[in-house]
């Protein structure tokens, strides 16, 4: 199921542990099934499911204690990439850790826009916010990620001086 993999990838970076992430994806697909009569045939099914999942996540977050949660990085296997290039593996680990340290609203737009490839317009629909807000949030999120990485002294990605 292509969408469940995509949904799980994002859920794992929003929730506090892998089981909670799977529960969130399951909840999203169940809600999708129950509200399928509202789905417009031919429209963007993936974006629609992400909208359902993020609504469920934010509803859960409101009732739970608000914390800067992140999935522990030592679960899951990096796969074939891991052994072949330790420098690249370290860079990937750095950026994953940096992403996990961002505020949830920055982490969310980066996951949707950069990792999952949604356009700003699609993200606006998924999060029910104006496209202008998506654009400024993405800019700030990219900047925040860059600053986190720079503070870990990754010289390749340190911010350049701008006149």
């Amino acid at each position, binding site marked *: 199921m*292509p969408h*469940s993999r995509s949904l*799980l990838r994002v859920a794992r970076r929003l929730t506090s542990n892998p089981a909670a992430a799977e529960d969130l994806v*399951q909840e999203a697909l169940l809600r999708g099934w129950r509200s399928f009569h509202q789905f417009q045939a031919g429209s963007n099914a993936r974006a629609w499911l992400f909208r359902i999942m993020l609504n469920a996540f934010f509803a859960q977050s409101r009732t739970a204690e608000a914390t800067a949660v992140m999935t522990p990085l030592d679960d899951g296997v990096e796969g074939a990439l891991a052994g072949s290039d330790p420098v690249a593996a370290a860079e990937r680990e750095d950026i994953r850790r940096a992403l996990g340290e961002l505020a949830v609203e920055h982490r969310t737009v980066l996951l949707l826009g950069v990792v999952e490839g949604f356009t700003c317009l699609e993200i606006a629909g998924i999060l029910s916010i104006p496209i202008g807000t998506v654009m400024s949030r993405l800019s700030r999120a990219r900047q925040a990620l860059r600053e986190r990485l720079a503070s870990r002294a990754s010289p390749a990605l340190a911010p350049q001086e701008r006149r």
Partner: protein
Amino acid sequence: MNCTDITALSPRYLSGELEPGPCAEFAEHLKSCPDCAREIDSLTRQDALLREAERSMDADTTALDRRIRERISSEASAPRAMRWMGTAAAAVIALLLGGFALRVLLGPHPTGLYGDATLDHRLEVIDRQPRRWISGKADLEALTARQGLPVTLLASLAPAAYRLERGKLCRLDGRVFLHLVYSDGARETSVFVRSSSDLTIPGPARESIGGRRVFAAEVGEQSIAALQDSRLTALFVASGHGPAAMDMAREAARAL
């Protein structure tokens, strides 16, 4: 375009959704402004690293997928779900589950002509979701003529013992079709027809009858058949598997 514009537009540039005109201006500015070029390059590289880093951590979803399917199946057959949907027909529930799987769980497969046609049949004919149908004979003939189709087609497409009940226009795979619903009093079947052969029917033709190619497939719980010649394309959708859709297509190929 100046550096301030570049900053403002960069999210839509980086997502690839900037329109061609502004996109070309954006690229022009980068050619002449090293600071902006460095900035966009840095963000592009950061994005690529983030994407690769996150996607390299993909988990296996086999067990999760199975749990979700089981949960949906058990909900679909629960008495509460049946009452909620206003029908006791298990076949309809299976169709709904099939339709949901078609459109959502299976991602982009099946799409296009067959996917759209079977989905329309399920939502509009079986589920009877509200639509603006045309019912009067004269109105249906006028609608048919406006689509560049001969009105004699309405009878030629009718399966044996079925009568034309209603019709309307719809879009399948982005193209306008006439959606006709025929009934024998107990069952309803959908025929979608378009006055051209400007589209490719999936799969090889099963038969050729009177110079018309006939195709068939199964999509979820429904069977679908297609008929194409130089002047028109018609799709026949029947609920359940078996020869019904193919028989209708063969009959129509002989009658045309």
